């Protein structure tokens, strides 16, 4: 198992124009853990990711990754601490090829001069080929990312996260709009990735969360409603009330 830092959120509150997107949210993710976060629309899932990655600053509360105070760092610094993020809408560089997308994500010096003098080493090429195989896009390496199918785009973005070699991966709704087969493939991919690093998956799809088969956190109105194995969470009357229908 890869040594890593744990993610620690305590008492996080975020308000937008009087609306409490997060309300005293607390969450701990241990190194190497795969955690699913579910919740209805507006429960604060994406805002939670924004806080962890430095896009949104909380009004109050503590957010730490290992020894680092996440509330004081910007997106770039947080990314370089080893926190990678996959967006809800797959975001990549459409004008560049699949290979080039992975190359930019590859963990390497991030400075301007380093980018000017960058030469693709054999080792880097091997690492990219490895990830291409892992996400099943070896055949598409030379195609522009813009022409990939929706599912392939999702995998490419996960591949870009793998290139960053993060300690913690945040994955926002990876199977939205995927076919059943693609969903299964994605679940397997994420299970393989976890263990080497911590993964937090935000998802609507309960089937997918069941396929992951790990600890689940249910968010509701900006706080944690319930937490535990999926079987236990599904039995929780509060969860049934807000999530499965009233």
């Amino acid at each position, binding site marked *: 198992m890869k040594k890593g830092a744990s993610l620690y959120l305590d008492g996080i509150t975020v308000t937008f124009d009087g609306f409490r997107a997060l309300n005293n949210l607390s969450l701990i993710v241990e190194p190497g853990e795969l955690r699913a976060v579910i919740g209805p629309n507006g429960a604060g899932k994406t805002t939670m990711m924004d806080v962890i*990655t430095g*896009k949104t600053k909380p009004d109050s509360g503590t957010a730490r990754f290992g020894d680092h105070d996440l509330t004081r760092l*910007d*997106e*770039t610094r947080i*990314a*370089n601490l080893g926190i*990678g*993020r996959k*967006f809800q809408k797959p*975001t*990549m*560089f*459409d*004008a*560049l090829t699949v290979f*080039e997308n992975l*190359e*930019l*994500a590859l963990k390497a010096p*991030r*400075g*301007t001069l380093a*980018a*000017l*003098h*960058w030469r693709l080493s054999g080792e880097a090429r091997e690492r990219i080929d490895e990830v291409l195989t892992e996400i099943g896009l070896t055949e598409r390496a*030379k*195609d522009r990312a813009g022409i990939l199918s929706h599912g392939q785009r999702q995998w490419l973005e996960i591949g*870009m996260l793998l290139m*960053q070699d993060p300690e913690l991966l945040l994955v926002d709704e990876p199977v939205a709009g995927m076919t059943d087969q693609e969903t299964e493939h994605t679940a397997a991919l994420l299970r393989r990735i976890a263990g080497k690093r911590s993964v937090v998956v935000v998802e609507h799809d309960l089937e997918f969360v069941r396929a992951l088969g790990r600890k689940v956190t249910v968010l509701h109105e900006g706080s944690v409603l319930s937490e535990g194995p999926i079987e236990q969470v599904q039995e929780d009357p509060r969860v049934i009330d807000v999530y499965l229908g009233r």
Partner: protein
Amino acid sequence: MPGISSLRFNLRLLLVALIFVLLLLPPLLNALPAGHPLRVSDFVVAVTGKWICYAILALSIDLAWGYAGILSLGHGAFFALGGYAMGMHLMRNIGDRGVYGHPILPDFMVFLGYKELPWYWLGFEYFPFAMLMALLVPGALAGLVGWLAFRSRITGVYLSIITQAMTYALMLAFFRNDMGFGGNNGFTDFKDLLGVPLNTPSARTGLYLAAFGALLITLLISAHVVQSKFGRLLIAIRDAESRVRFLGYDVTAFKLFVFVLSAMMAGLAGALYVPLVGIINPGEFSPGNSIEAVVWVAFGGRGTLIGAILGAFSVNALKTWLTSFAPDLWLLVLGALFIVVTLFLPRGLIGLIKRRGA
């Protein structure tokens, strides 16, 4: 797939070679004896030389806009600042040959009652210093404006408006007599550069070849930048800026780097332009100039480098031809050109050539 891209690459190289060979013709044909049927006039050399400077300006805009997505509507300001730096050197070169015959002060300063040279004119009597300032002053201004804007994540149309305001503010400032830059008359009546009188054929050819060399060098530098991982990052920033940030890159640093490099190239273009045309005045800062330069790039095809060069030559050729008999029509044609390119040729002339080639 690799076959097609290498074909395209060769096509592009061929185009570059063709342009540079053609650009060598005017000074060569100008050197033929008078009366020779193939001889071109001094006017053709002067005009083509001017266009080469415009092509460098277009290249600098393409680097910032076509690749990094920074649509500057104020690049004319960097061009003009480079031009003023060179103009100051040329003014100092006049020495006591001015109308008033003052050994140090340029005519306009004598006229305005200056007793001594303002401190910011010191050093401009040296050519290397003036050339250095032609690069550093635009670079520093771009660094300051860029740092303030990129740090606050000002992008898109807001950034364009800020750059447009920047060039407008500079134009108003340079119109003022007490700025010490000759007010609305600017600088003119230059005598010589590096000891060569400017009105001689050898000076004209020399300036032309200097611009030619500068275009070649700036194209090579730009090509090196865009073909590196740096260039792919610029495209990435253009298309999905926040994704680049989440990958751990300092987007502000990358944008600042390319914006400053681009401004310095524009400054170089301006410095080469002024001795060729023999005058610099605050009109060079006018917002319309910057917008026109953006149209060259859009027309030629942005994000291709060679398209910017092609655009600068073709639009200016059209302008020179059209304004010789219908000068009032030019702005209408320019506007129409921009609309046509936006609607029907989003990838410009280069896109058209590529489509034919494929």
